[in-house]
């Protein structure tokens, strides 16, 4: 718990960055494909900085950019 104002926080997924083309699906959040790990990381940092959002790196290596 950090910036939540209630016990039921309203998380919003802003972007999903992956190196696996098959995981790029439609939906509300922006899904981006990066050709390798390094590009994915750079892309994540850039998008997260621009949106002032938090980043979660998943076990699969994909990145999730989200905000409360």
């Amino acid at each position: 718990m950090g910036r939540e104002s209630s016990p039921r926080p309203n998380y919003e997924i802003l972007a999903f960055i992956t190196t696996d083309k098959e995981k790029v699906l439609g939906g509300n959040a922006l899904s981006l494909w990066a050709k390798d790990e390094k590009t994915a990381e750079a892309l994540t940092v850039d998008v997260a900085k621009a949106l002032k959002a938090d980043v979660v790196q998943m076990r699969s290596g994909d990145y999730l950019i989200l905000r409360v």
Partner: protein
Amino acid sequence: MNDTLISSEHIVLILTAIIVGTTARILNLKEDYRQYPSYPNGYLIHLITGFIAAALGAVAIPALMTKNFVAVTFLTIAIQQFRDVRKTERDSLKDLENTEYAFRGDAYIDGIAKTFEARNYSTLIVSFITALTIQIVNSKLIWINILCGVITGFIVFFILKRFSKGKTIGDIADVKEGKIEVKGSELFVDGIYVSNQLGTENSRKLFEEGGLAVVIIPREEHFRITLDNFGQRQAALFEATRSIGVKRYHFTRKDFENGRIVISLVPIIKDVNKLIETVKTTPLLESTKKSQSVMQTNLTGRE
């Protein structure tokens, strides 16, 4: 002409009661590490409302003495005014929510606003009791009247202060420094999982180099009910971020197994002792407090 003017005994009575009442409010308006209300405007507002509360308490006795029973109804106006004090305090704190480092939280705001209301009541009671004492003593020597009034007023003030004094987290729990570990995207403090929002290299470095964490360990099993409360944790987190600042990231997490609470952040001033002290002195919120002894006592009598 003199009939319409107030007698000198009454002037002494009213003035003494107002002064004692206002002094009680000043003594209750303490500046500590929380620095709330703020100086100078916050102080002025509460001193003036305290003065008015004292004045209302002071004139009640002379009003009754002059058989002006209807005048006592203005005490209802006093109650209305104090409720407004609570309301304005709550509104202004809620307005500030989005500009603070962390949220104070509704529970904490409610507690602060209630305290301000209660302190006005205690001012009113102190000045009322002072006036009552002067009236009852009714000595020919004015100084004896005043002295008795002042002494009784302050005794009542200290009793009320004692009665309304709240407890702090340090009274029911131990607070100690926690060891920060970053494993991949995840943050652990003393082995307790806290967050997985450290997805970038920057954030991991930031936390490893500048992060601070404390663990709150409840002394008794039943204190967990109070400490686990969302509002209570939010209050502790707020006080922590307010006293040492926050560069980025602040988390709290509870551990289900042992009831430990983690508070962790990347502060501006990296001083763990300050953090521990602040968390220890965070007040226990009235709305979250549970009295174990009352829960066990048979108060109403069972068949």
